[in-house]
């Protein structure tokens, strides 16, 4: 854990968001195991500190674009968990009215411009949102979340260059969870630190421990401030790990049990819990209450989704 001391209120807010994401993902896994669920999913367990640490510096009107592994980003940005769950159930009350599902969850009312099933595709879209903010002089910041795999897409390079040239208020957040589906990033990426690519575009790049929420929080603070004050983009690489397989029940046989266990020892939520109790002297009962409330919130979301009607029209969404 980084040495920085957070104030209790902020810290508990971060903790609550991370737990909400974890409980949401755990419940979803259980649902997929125990009943027919539509579609697939890509789970965020293990990476919670990234979404939460970054979004902690964003206002409601700021923008994010996300990835196929987007549940965490959506929750961290403040989207309604009920609406996300209902979308997982393909219900008409879902945030996308059952038209998008897990890989397209979005909530424009909180600036969440969409998860995306095409690797890297959200990056230039975030750049466009940042351009819009710059043009309208609203000081809104855009964040593009993407994985280590996306950093090898052309969209990444085009978007970083354009954002740098136009000095746009955008933060590029690479969630390096080491694997693009089954392939270790070092088998397909010529350099160790993806953040080093920032220098090719004349912008700052930093690699942080993505399992340490305070490290992410501190890096994001600087990058978001830089963006908001008109100094241009930053690339933040967060070293993290996905606990689950790539998708649905994929078993991740390409990595060792030992590797997974090593990373789990550094679980961002458990570590932050220890920090809350040890360093910030938060009472354990208070933390337990957050855990319990988050689980209840997810249960309520499931009930809401179950009791919601199916969609009955798709045609009205094709054109505005």
């Amino acid at each position, binding site marked *: 854990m980084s040495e920085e001391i957070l104030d209790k209120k902020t810290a508990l807010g971060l903790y609550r968001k991370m737990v909400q994401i974890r409980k949401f993902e755990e419940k979803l896994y259980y649902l997929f195991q125990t009943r027919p669920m539509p579609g697939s999913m890509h789970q965020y367990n293990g990476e919670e500190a990234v979404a939460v640490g970054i979004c902690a510096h964003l206002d409601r009107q700021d923008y994010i674009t996300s990835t196929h592994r987007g549940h965490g980003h959506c929750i961290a940005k403040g989207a309604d968990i009920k609406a996300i769950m209902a979308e997982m159930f393909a219900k008409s009350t879902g945030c996308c009215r059952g038209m998008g599902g897990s890989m397209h969850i979005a909530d424009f009312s909180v600036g969440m411009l969409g998860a995306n099933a095409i690797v890297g595709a959200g990056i230039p879209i975030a750049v466009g949102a940042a351009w819009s903010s710059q043009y309208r002089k609203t000081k809104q910041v855009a964040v593009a979340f993407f994985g280590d795999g996306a950093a090898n897409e052309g969209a990444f390079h085009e978007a970083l*260059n354009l954002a740098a040239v136009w000095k746009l208020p955008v933060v590029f957040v690479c969630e390096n969870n080491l694997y693009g589906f089954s392939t270790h990033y070092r088998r397909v990426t010529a350099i160790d630190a993806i953040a080093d690519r920032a220098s090719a575009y004349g912008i700052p790049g930093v690699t942080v421990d993505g399992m340490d929420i305070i490290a992410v929080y501190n890096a994001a603070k600087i990058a978001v401030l830089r963006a908001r004050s008109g100094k241009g983009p930053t690339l933040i690489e967060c070293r993290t790990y996905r606990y689950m397989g790539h998708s649905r029940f994929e078993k991740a046989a390409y990595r060792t049990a030992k590797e997974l266990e090593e990373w789990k020892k550094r679980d961002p939520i458990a570590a932050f819990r220890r920090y809350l109790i040890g360093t910030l002297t938060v009472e354990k009962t208070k933390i337990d209450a957050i855990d319990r409330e988050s689980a209840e919130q997810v249960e309520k979301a499931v009930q809401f989704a179950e009791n919601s009607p199916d969609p009955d029209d798709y045609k009205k969404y094709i054109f505005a």
Partner: protein
Amino acid sequence: MQAKKIVEALNQALREEMQRDERVVLLGEDIAVFGGAYRVTEGLLDLFGEDRVKDTPISETAIIGASIGAAMTGLRPVAEIQFNDFLTCAMDQICNQAAKTRFMLGGQVTIPMVIRAPYGATGRAAQHSQSLEAWFMHTPGLKVVMPSTPYDAKGLLKTAIRDDNPVMFFEHKLLYGAASPGGTAKTAVDELDESFTPAPDEEYTVEFGKADIKRSGKDVTIVATGYMVHKSLMAAARLSADTGIDCEIIDPRSLVPLDTKTIINSIEKTGRLVIASEDVLSCGISAEISAIAAEQAFFYLDAPIKRVAVPDTPIPFAPIMEQAVIPQTDSIINAVFETVTGSSSG
């Protein structure tokens, strides 16, 4: 002053819309300082400044992606892709993102953006000569527009900019009117008569989904787009003078939405259908219009439908070969003759 060339008509449309609505912004390669490879954005940088007329890197994915992000968040970008062949470099952003995002997000967002792209063969070989409109008709969520006159170009572009959906706007290079980076370029405009209707210097729009009957006739319906409208008009004039065959020429103007009603009504009147387009035959716009006619106008047809389009080949460089594969006035005359007489004019 009225615009007698499409390049001037488009410039007028952009200028008027930018004056009317400050959310309208332009981006693309070489469009600001240089004024655009085909001069469509000439003078707009001086009028509207660098915030609204933006040169971009040669990054088609970023151009379209940035347009989408901007459109989602309150702007109305008009992106220029220098040649429609380069749309291929941004296909994900166009077809997976711009076209589908509103749908996938359950209607949460509108994406009001225009992608302008020059098309058509002008002696630059297979990567600068295509007519790719059919690809985008095949992607629900995109509107597809192809003007054939300065009047339509201005009115349709203004409609495109005001539309809340992504619009693919295809501009034929030979109809621009001799505009090119070097000063003058090949143009077909000088050969065109009053059918190349000028754009008045005043406010008007041309609605999507309303085909224009460019020539009324009773014997054969010709559905044509872009430059093919004018080749069809020339063909009709010669057919009328030489054979008395009276062609009706329908320019759909927008392919999505497509005014099938006007086409069907015309077939009901003439009993014969020729489709002339500059895209390739297979799965092209002529295939789609043929299918619509077969489904909805079968019993009005007195003869097989004829399609005049580029055969399934990349466009060759050699001018003589390019001219051989691009539909010409004679190809249209032959097709009309065949559908009327059941035999070729040779």
